[in-house]
């Protein structure tokens, strides 16, 4: 019943909505970024962050810092906040919050499987995993030899199990397979999340379908660009696109047959919201596309805070914080490698 959330939303969701809005106001500000971009060393960054909400997480780190430590601690803060919200949440918000982590779970599965394929140490791989996407038997992924085993041994216990129905094959794992698996899983995940949000109804459904549609479209473009010049057939490519979003279904037909970046641009420019993104890029360029998409995403995420009584704020907050951590990582990397002129290349401001 759209428009009537105000009557009942606060019974279960009010406290957490207040919490998440409070968290959101702790995001770094323009002045913070300004100061961070002027830092000379990682210690400067630490000192600056100690005045922000990250302070308590970084204060006990001994002095020669590494970028990974900064990122790790900042992520830890996000995880702590997420866990706090999850423990407080009731249905259906708790399920909604869990859905947010499935994306990280897919990434972690792919990371471990790829890593084992290239014979990396499992412990080392585990450290690289995103803590939000951890599940109990994640380390056992290394045992599996093919998709079927992967599913039967490990993933059957995880929430990802239903997404696997599309990609159970007995083929041995290789890089191409894994990449297809990632995208198939992601497709199934996004569609499932989309259905779940539709079921919730109200402002949540409205805002989330917009945000998820953007995500699906972005993935479709990325899949297209990354698969240009590979042996992936058009039909297979078409199968990896999610079955919703602004591009569905006609845009997908066009993307499926694209052979270079300019054809992608031609297909995308028919859609007004994406036209503005592509108009920023010069012809034949795809490096800056990621940043342009991130900027658009951040804009949309921020807008979701303009409405009240819906769950999209939780999704938006998690995404914004992740973007902030990506920014911090980039800034720290630039500072650590003395490439300060490139600081602004990849930082997406969140205001």
């Amino acid at each position, binding site marked *: 019943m759209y428009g009537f959330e105000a009557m009942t939303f606060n019974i279960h969701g009010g406290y957490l909505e207040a919490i998440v809005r409070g968290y959101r106001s702790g995001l770094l500000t323009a002045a913070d970024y300004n100061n961070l971009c002027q830092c000379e060393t990682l210690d400067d960054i630490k000192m600056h962050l100690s005045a922000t909400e990250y302070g308590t997480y970084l204060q006990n780190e001994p*002095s020669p810092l590494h970028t990974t430590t900064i990122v790790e601690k900042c992520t830890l803060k996000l995880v702590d906040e997420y866990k706090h919200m999850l423990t407080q949440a009731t249905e259906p918000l708790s399920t909604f919050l869990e859905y947010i982590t499935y994306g990280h779970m897919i990434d972690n599965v792919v990371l471990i499987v790829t890593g084992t394929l290239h014979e990396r140490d499992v412990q080392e791989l585990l450290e690289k995993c995103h803590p939000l996407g951890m599940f109990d038997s994640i380390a056992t992924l290394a045992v599996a030899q093919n998709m079927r085993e992967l599913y039967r041994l490990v993933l059957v216990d995880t929430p990802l199990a239903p997404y696997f129905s599309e990609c159970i094959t007995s083929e041995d794992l290789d890089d191409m397979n894994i990449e297809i698996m990632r995208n198939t899983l992601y497709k199934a995940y996004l569609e499932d999340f989309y259905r779940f949000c539709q079921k919730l109804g109200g402002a949540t459904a409205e805002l989330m379908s917009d945000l998820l549609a953007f995500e699906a479209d972005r993935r479709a473009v990325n899949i297209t660009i990354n698969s240009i010049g590979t042996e992936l057939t058009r039909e297979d490519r078409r199968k990896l696109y999610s079955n919703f979003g602004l591009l569905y279904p006609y845009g997908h037909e066009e993307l499926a047959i694209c052979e270079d970046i300019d054809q992608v641009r031609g297909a995308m420019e028919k859609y007004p919201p994406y036209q503005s993104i592509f108009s920023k890029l010069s012809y034949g360029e795809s490096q800056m596309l990621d940043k342009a998409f991130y900027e658009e995403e951040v804009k949309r995420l921020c807008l979701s805070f303009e409405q009240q009584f819906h769950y999209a704020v939780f999704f938006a907050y998690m995404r914004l914080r992740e973007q902030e951590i990506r920014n911090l990582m980039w800034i720290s990397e630039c500072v650590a490698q003395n490439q300060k002129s490139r600081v602004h290349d990849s930082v997406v401001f969140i205001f």
Partner: protein
Amino acid sequence: MEYIDRLPSMDLMRSEKMMLAQLIIPVESAHRAVSYLGQLGLLQFRDVSSDPLFYQLPLWFSVYTCYMLVKLVAWERLLNDDKSPFQRTFVNQVKRCAEMSRKLRFFKDQIHKAGLGLSPHPASETDIELEDLEVGLAEHEHELLEMNHNSEKLQKAYNELLEFKMVLQKAGDFLMPDGNHSADHETELDENVHTNNDYADSASLLEQEMQPGLSDQSGVKFVSGVICKSKALRFERMLFRTTRGNMLFNQAPADDPIVDPASNEMVENIVFMVFFSGEQARKKIHKICEAFGANCYPVPEDSIKRRQITRDVLSRLSELETTLEAGLRHRDAALNSIAFQLTKWMNMVRREKAIYDTLNMLNFDVTKKCLVGEGWCPIFAKTMIQDALQRATFDSSSQVGIIFHVMDSIESPPTFFRTNHFTNAYQEIVDAYGVAKYQEANPAVYTVITFPFLFAVMFGDWGHGICLLLGALVLIAREKRLGSQKLSSFMEMLFGGRYVLLLMSLFSIYCGFIYNEFFSVPFHIFGSSAYKCRDATCRYQFVPQMIFLNSLFGYLSLLIIIKWCTGSQADLYHVMIYMFLSPFEDLGENKLFWGQAVIAVPWMLFPKPFILKRLHTERFQGRAYGILGTSDMYSDEEPDSARHPHGEEEFNFSEVFVHQMIHSIEFVLGAVSNTASYLRLWALSLAHSELSTVFYEKVLLLAWGYNNFMIRLVGLAVFAFATAFILLMMETLSAFLHALRLHWVEFQNKFYSGDGYKFKPFSFASLTDEDE
């Protein structure tokens, strides 16, 4: 003006007179000067590090600076008006202090983990230099980290051996069928004495027969190890899935929990043994063990070998144990020596950091020889500050003295009330609403009496009052002891407000006497009277600017006093209400004076706008004169009005009149609603007395009606419980909150703007209990 100067000082009523002072400190004595000022704690530094210099320096100085500037060309630095924190002068020192306090936190954490206590009194022997302390801390940290590293390594080795021992012991049970247990022991004997005992022989033969059968003939192999108990179930499931059920999983709980060196917690483990067949399965099982963090240990199938290894392991275990213990003792000794000094070091580092933070608020002058700072201080502290600065110059044997001179200020000074133990809590109550503007009248003075009084009007019962009084007296009697220790947040609140509690209880006793209430039992000490609940609406008349209010509610108070004096039966509510509803009708017996309404209503409506209008006109006239006479002063204080003085000089009557109308309607409504708000006094006092009556009559008297001892006891218990928790705690809280509201909303909004800011001097004393 002379007359005003000769008045006694109003410490409580008005803020201390403040002044803005400028300090020009030579670099060599800056640190010492700031630390002396911190000990004194009477100067609040302003952050001038990003101000352009010209505006702060006195004239002679700026002429000199201009001259220097031509030579030095330091424009860029001067005009850099937005410095980020890490571009400040003493940022490196601040970083060093932060690093040191990190080390200190690490020590504290370690000491806490080792279960040692900090020495509460800082050992105050020799003062060490910060540089020495830094080196010392680094050494200590290095030493401690190395010890931790070593002991962790040892602990790990020890854990492995311990686990191995357990695996060996349990493996015996897994490998042998039950019947062979006795045989096991006997083979041991038999081995030593070499007797030809048939039974023993056959047993060992059986064993030898059985084990090759296990491993070689049918290709069954096993992996044994230790895994954390919480993971065991998943581990077993995973093994089952991978081998498609072709395995046998044996497990037994381990005897002793093992200390996890990373988290220093005890972990319960189980010993497992997996039997399987095939090389492929072995690889997978090993991988799973690795993934689950299970430690595998090779167990020889031969029981003799096993026993040998067990013996080996046991001897190494005892060796390791002694080493571990020695290491631990060594570490504890090191930690103890740190713990002895830690509090002192922490204080010192905290002070140093505060000093450097303060120094960062100062600015270098162009010659880079002096630091320039500004700060607020009370005028009475001037000599003390100068004294401290002189000492600093002397102690650091600087050639140049510190220049301290008073400046004119544009912005309003901070507000500083000197309080004592008694008035502090009341000041806090007022400050929570808003800090008084500089030189604004301080409502805390009234609050000392009015707050407890309003509370008591709602809580008037001298029985309950005595209970509160006892509580307050206990807190005050233990003031010294409670003040020195750390309290829980609730106790801290109670302790902070102990004098408020004291006065509240005294006033409650007083009001209780007037109301004739003692635990809701009427006590006729002053004879029966009826003023309870009647006079509550108009107790409150000390708001000076309420000319209007006096015409209405002052009249009401007058009526009340007349009523007390004449013993009239008139109902005051009726008088007041009918005065509005039907001013010209006969009020019957409720009539006190003829014509009261005729006088009161226009009295209420008319003088107010005229008085306001006159006030308004006066204000404008005053401002016009002000602009003529002291125009520069006005431009300082009210930049907006000073910018367009001519626009407002013309008196636009209609506009002002409309404004006045709106204002007066607002004021009338506000006054009526606020006064109605005081009805809560009446309501709450009634509620309190009714509630206590209910408990008294329905619980205590009812129970007393029975002749049963048990029922009486239960009744008494319920009554005592209800009195303590509902009447004493909850009602106190509610009366307190209502009194608070009456002060903040109804009282203070009449005259108190409260938009000042508090004087926060740079002081070491306020640092100590911070950042815990």
